């Protein structure tokens, strides 16, 4: 088993809201998807990210405000999951609620293992 980092970009950028029906429904979808991964023992930590951030750049360590690119491509959260290979990881990602929006992207990156 390998570990993969899922980066969620774009999509419906509303936060996890408990107050609106749409928010509740959205949370339910995340629960179903992640609960499914958990049931297979494939779920690692996952969190949404705050919208605001900073960029620290280059040798001069120049600090600028985010967002760093167009809002719809901004990383909104991450999840670590276990999969046998990249193909399985792709399959596992397909039910991610971020993909409900046309602009939603799951970027999948294999986490390197320590070389023995």
């Amino acid at each position, binding site marked *: 088993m390998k570990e993969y980092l899922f980066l969620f970009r774009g999509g419906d950028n509303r936060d*996890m809201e408990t107050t609106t029906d749409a928010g509740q429904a959205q949370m339910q979808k995340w629960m179903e998807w*992640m609960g499914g991964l958990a049931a297979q023992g494939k*779920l*690692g*930590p*996952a969190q949404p990210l705050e919208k605001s951030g900073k960029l620290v750049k280059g040798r001069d360590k120049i600090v600028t405000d985010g967002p760093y690119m167009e809002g719809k491509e901004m990383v909104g959260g991450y*999840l670590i999951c276990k999969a046998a290979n990249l193909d399985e990881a792709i399959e596992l990602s397909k039910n991610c609620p971020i993909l409900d929006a046309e602009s939603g992207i799951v970027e999948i990156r294999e986490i390197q293992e320590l070389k023995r």
Partner: protein
Amino acid sequence: MDNDSKDINRLADHLFRHESGKMVAVLVKIFGTENLQIAEDVVQDTLMKALETWQQNGLPENPAAWLYRVAKNKAIDIIRRNKFSVQYDFSDSERILLQSEYTLNVVMDTLWTAEQVNDDLLQMMFACCHPEIPEESQIALILKTLCGFSTAEIAKSFLSNDDTIAKRIYRAKEFFRLRKLRPEFPGVSEISGRINAVLKTIYLIFNEGYNATHADTLIRKDLLDQAIYLTGLLCGNQHTQLPEVYAAMALMHFHAARIDSRIGTDGDIILLSSQDRIKWNTSMISEGNEYLNKAATGDRLTSYHIEAAIAYEHCIALKFEDTNWERILFYYNLLENLHPSAIVSLNRLMVLFKLYGSAYVINEIASAPDTAGWEKNYLYHSLLGEIYAPSDKAAAIGHYMQAQTMTQSAAEKKLLSNKILALG
């Protein structure tokens, strides 16, 4: 304090006894048994907040739901505060879902549904009665964490002191902390053994309430109430509704139905022969009978079945003289075969005394292979007192006095004093 807030306090007291255990059980599921203390702290905070708020604004429409909501929000706060200090471990998927902001709220909501809460409480009962926790710690732990008793109340209930009880609870918590035990229902192959430990602990709690070892009527009723409440939950759950559970429930009903006639207004014990049977709670007896019918399935005959049958015999006798001692003797013979013990054979002796008189019992004692077990019990000396009372007053008084030195209960001592006085 005005009447309204007194009412609220009383209501809250009753509600808290039942709800605090459920909340602890859910919170333990969230934080793990190793963090039982955190769970208890959250419940304490919740109850304090409830008292404050309710005294100001009156009772909410659904007080239990109010408590759950506050406890849930406090739990969410704690998780949020500790979130990033947790290492990740793929094997604990429940924990991961609780620790992700994507799923935390939804998981939390599902954890606090009524059905789930009851299951958690029962699973926690099994954890508290884990075979590696000493029995005395099991009792203290159940009363403290699941019945909302304070350490002082437990100490009072078991004629012990706060330090001893605190140590017993501490040891049990240490066990949880080291073992990170996960509360769950035992498997089908294990359940009958494990349920015995749970029933035994509950029955000890019940007995402590039933026997007048302490004069405080409120605590006594609370103990009875809690024991019946916990057994009722076991009866209502598909994992635990076993014949012996129904039998224990029946037994407790038959005893509790008679408690008001058993203790006088001044805390004195009233003997079965002089109890006012009008005061017996007939609806409780018939409820007990329903449980006894439900217990009559399967092929296992447990001591709860037989003890319930004995108690039932007493319940259906309209007058003391109507007591069917032959049948009761039959049950004691069964019980002695099933679980030979000094206390069972001693009770059997008392039935023999009622049936066949003193000469028969003296003979029975003389031919007993070993009386050491009896000698240690005050009931034996009290019985000898009764046996000798008509023939040898001095001997009878001697036995009663011996019995007095062997019971800690003030009410029992007084009962024996009265017997001695009657002889004088």
